[in-house]
């Protein structure tokens, strides 16, 4: 009887029970939305302004697929992916960890008829939603700055939700492993920061040594940039299926690992 549940790698058992948990996070966030939003969009905009206009004046234009684009557009279309990544990661690490470990909110929830699997799903979707919210605000500012006016940005929006989902799933793995907040520093310094520089956000991946580039091409953030950047330039991305598939594989595999490790953490 217990063999099935004993296996932490068993298939996720998901139901609509995630919804009240998601709603709980929404209710808390609603109370703090404005300061939280300012924090979430201020930093990416500073990057954009400082590098886009500052460095952009030196760089001038960047050649992309035979077309010259202003550096600010190049940077904006990449950094929006980074913002999606960061917003989702912060929520799925620090905030989820507070709820899981510090406040014991998850323990409380599981005294009601809600499975751990659904709690993890709710946290994942919540982090992705928050990331989408941040991204939407930043997109709004970019529109206002006139960086891009392509109607294809409407397509970029759901793609960025996918990016948020992928990075939420990945962050939840580290959430499941963490003993304290300090642990998350490793994830940032060992994974996210290198990825930021290898994924063609600030400069084209063509600049990288071939062997590094071969790896960098398969990073989830590279894939996200490859999907989103052309949309900013009013073009359709090359290999959309391959790139969406790579993101989806990262998301599904990460979610599964995160769930297994979280089950292990809660099992005793």
């Amino acid at each position: 009887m217990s063999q099935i549940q004993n296996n932490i790698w068993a298939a996720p058992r998901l139901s609509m029970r995630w919804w009240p948990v998601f709603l709980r996070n929404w209710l808390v966030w609603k109370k703090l939305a404005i300061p939280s939003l300012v924090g979430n969009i201020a930093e990416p905009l500073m990057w954009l302004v400082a590098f886009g206009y500052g460095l952009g004046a030196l760089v001038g234009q960047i050649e992309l697929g035979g077309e010259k684009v202003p550096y600010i557009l190049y940077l904006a279309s990449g950094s929006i992916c980074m913002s999606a990544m960061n917003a989702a990661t912060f929520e799925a690490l620090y905030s989820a960890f507070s709820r899981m470990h510090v406040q014991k909110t998850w323990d409380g929830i599981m005294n009601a008829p809600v499975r751990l699997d659904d709690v993890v799903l709710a946290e994942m979707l919540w982090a992705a939603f928050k990331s989408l919210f941040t991204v939407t605000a930043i997109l709004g500012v970019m529109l206002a700055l006139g960086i891009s006016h392509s109607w294809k940005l409407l397509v970029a929006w759901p793609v960025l939700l996918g990016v948020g989902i992928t990075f939420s799933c990945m962050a939840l793995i580290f959430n499941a492993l963490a003993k304290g907040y300090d642990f998350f520093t490793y994830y940032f310094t060992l994974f996210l920061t290198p990825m930021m520089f290898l994924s063609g956000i600030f400069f084209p991946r063509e600049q990288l040594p071939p062997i590094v580039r071969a790896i960098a091409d398969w990073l989830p953030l590279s894939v996200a940039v490859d999907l989103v950047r052309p949309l900013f330039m009013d073009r359709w991305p090359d290999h959309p299926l391959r790139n969406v598939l790579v993101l989806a594989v990262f998301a599904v595999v990460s979610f599964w690992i995160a769930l297994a490790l979280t089950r292990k953490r809660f099992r005793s």
Partner: protein
Amino acid sequence: MNSPLLSVDHLVKRYGDTTVVNDLSFHIEPGECLGVIGPNGAGKTTTLRMCLGLSEPGSGSIVYFDGQQMPQDVLAIKAQLGVVAQMDTLDPDFTAEENLLVFGRYFGLPDATIRERIPQLLEFAALSHKGKAKPGELSGGMKRRLSLARALINQPRLLMLDEPTTGLDPQARHLMWERLQVLLQEGKSILLTTHFMDEAERLCSRLLVLDQGRKIAEGKPRDLIAEHLEPEVVEVFGHGAVALAQEASLKALAGRVEVSGETVFFYTHDSRALMAALQAWPALRTLNRLSNLEDLFLKLTGRQIREEG
């Protein structure tokens, strides 16, 4: 004869080579308050966690209500269960009312139903004036009562309370007991674990004494005392008291003599004769009282300190 709300049969839990719950069987009848007592490491919390589906049993069965099995039917069981954990898990960002609302949603209850229940629950918890207060603004006793109110949001058939008054001051503890008494009078059924023997004696209709993962006694508090102990105790303390434990004239008057630190405990059926005999040692101080659950607990589980979790 009602069928039990919960029956646990031959439950076993091992961690590596250590058996923390060893062939444990018990049940809870409707309307009953079953107290689980035992020293640290006796397996109380592990048993409760298995009953809540938070920990996998090694073997044995846990059957609830109308035959639902833990852990297979965990959601169906939880829907009819109210749980107050040892640590408060209230949401610090929500007011008392919001805490109840959000928790009710986890049960799939419609908002209208929950909002209808909130004022009654706050009143029950003596928190009507604190509906808009956040947990950080509440005292320890208020938080515990809010946790209790939260556990009642789904009108559970059975309440599971893990050390519901640990860490509370006497006033808060008495108020909590009084609230639990009200629930019992309304016919609610409760399983509680506790370290406080006066709590167990006051609330529980039946007790389960655990030690090292085993059931070592079970029954009504008064019956257990009558079964295992002489009705009265004379405690003697002061300089030279310990030597009295060897005094033949006194030992003859006591059913059992126990020394703990500097105090001698004479368990007796005839305290008057014993007290008279003790007049010969006027320098020593005596305390004559009825045997209680604490004496029983210490007799069954020993006086040594259990440091392990």
